[in-house]
């Protein structure tokens, strides 16, 4: 099992701990990562796409071309990256006009979009049967925590774009894979009201930080109602909303209890026996130390 690793911007630059955790987990589970490809920013569905679609498409196409040249499917670690790269891949495969336009731009750099690869996300890669079998065999400990999953809007919406083969009767898609995967490592995945509400990140980043935090504050309200002990995310922007967001919110409301947030591969890594430090947990703003000590993980 081999993928072209697409790191994006936020993970290698802001949250390299997620990258470290992902590399350790993939190596242990026999997922080979090829990562010497000169990618650029994806670019984000919340940024360049909104401002200049043609530039967004052309730059995304270049990233797709690099994976095509290497003959590998593209593995992303972020809900934003997977959204851009899946949508661009699909748009270019299905529209002759768009493909022609983009290839004309890329031609000067000896690149051509052929539509030869697929784009995937680390959650979907880990969810494959052969990987789960390996995880069960290699598990070193259980992680018995009540965890609330947050998927990140761009990981699965619009569903017709992200999971066209798995639509419900209402042509929608409700993600469950993170909950299922975590239950394998002894986590108690815990439902909460408005689980699929946005984290507020794009609104905060582009327009109004406070408004973005007001959305995550709502989410946290529902999460606290269910006595959830920790959160699991698959996107660095969502992570920042929960981690930094709780620090910012607690400045105004001092008595708020804080809930640590994990990137998915950090939780899987703990189950595989890696230490919190190896998985980069030491730099999170909301510390998980005490919680992990309560289940004898140090």
């Amino acid at each position, binding site marked *: 099992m081999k993928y072209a690793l697409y*790191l994006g*911007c*936020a993970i*290698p*630059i*802001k949250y*390299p*701990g997620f*990258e*470290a955790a992902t*590399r350790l987990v993939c190596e242990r589970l026999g997922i080979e990562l090829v990562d010497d490809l*000169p*990618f*650029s*920013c994806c*670019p*984000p*569905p*919340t*940024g*360049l*796409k*909104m*401002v*200049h*679609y*043609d*530039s967004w498409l*052309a*730059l995304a196409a*270049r990233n797709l071309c690099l994976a095509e040249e290497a003959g590998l499917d593209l593995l992303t670690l972020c809900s934003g990256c997977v959204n851009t790269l899946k949508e661009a891949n699909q748009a270019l495969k299905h529209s002759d006009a768009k493909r022609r336009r983009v290839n004309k*731009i*890329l031609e*000067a*750099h000896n690149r051509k979009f052929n539509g030869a690869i697929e784009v995937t996300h680390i959650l979907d890669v880990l969810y494959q049967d052969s990987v789960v079998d390996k995880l069960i065999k290699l598990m070193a400990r259980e992680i018995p925590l009540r965890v609330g999953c947050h998927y990140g*809007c*761009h990981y699965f*919406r*619009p*569903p017709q774009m992200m999971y066209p083969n798995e639509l419900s009767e209402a*042509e*929608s898609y409700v993600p469950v894979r993170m909950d299922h995967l975590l239950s394998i490592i002894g986590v108690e995945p815990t439902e909460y009201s408005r689980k*699929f*509400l*946005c984290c*507020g*990140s*794009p*609104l905060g*980043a*582009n*327009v*109004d930080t406070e*408004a973005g935090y*007001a*959305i995550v504050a*709502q989410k946290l309200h529902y999460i606290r109602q269910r006595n959830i002990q920790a959160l699991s995310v698959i996107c660095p922007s969502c992570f920042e909303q929960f981690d930094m967001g709780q620090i910012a919110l607690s400045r105004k409301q001092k008595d708020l209890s804080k809930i640590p947030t994990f990137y998915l591969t950090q939780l899987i890594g703990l189950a595989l026996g890696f230490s919190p430090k*190896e998985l*980069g947990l030491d*730099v999170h703003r909301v510390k998980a130390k005490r919680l992990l000590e309560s289940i004898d993980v140090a």
Partner: protein
Amino acid sequence: MTIKIWKFFDREELYECYQCARCTGSCPAMEVTAALGPRGTILKCLNLGHEAVVQDEKVWFCCTCNVCDDRCPQQIPISDLLVALRNSAARRGNVPGRLLLSLELLAKTGRTMIVHQLDEMRAHHGLAPLPPAPVDEVRAILKRAGLEEVLDF
């Protein structure tokens, strides 16, 4: 240069809208800002014309969460409408300042994020330095794709 937005989004779709507000009812941006909201955006496009919509800074008050698109019983591709409207707004100089800054960074470095002491931070997690992105190729592609219509770089 402005764009003809109805080339990117079929205007007839607007008439499919019930104005039922199923979209707006689950719009997170509406809960915390004075956003136009998806239903209101469609109504304004019909009543006032899209020119009025794209000049309004509130057209940017959105999480791009695509819930509206997902929930619309008429399957109106609202996400596409929002992209078309904002692309059009950007060509008229209506773009949030922060968003422009991140695009300037992209055009300058090939990435949309920058921190101090990156190598040290990565070394702390046992990671090698991050190779620079291929800025020259990225800039050339952005220029040929026409980004200069909205951003000097």
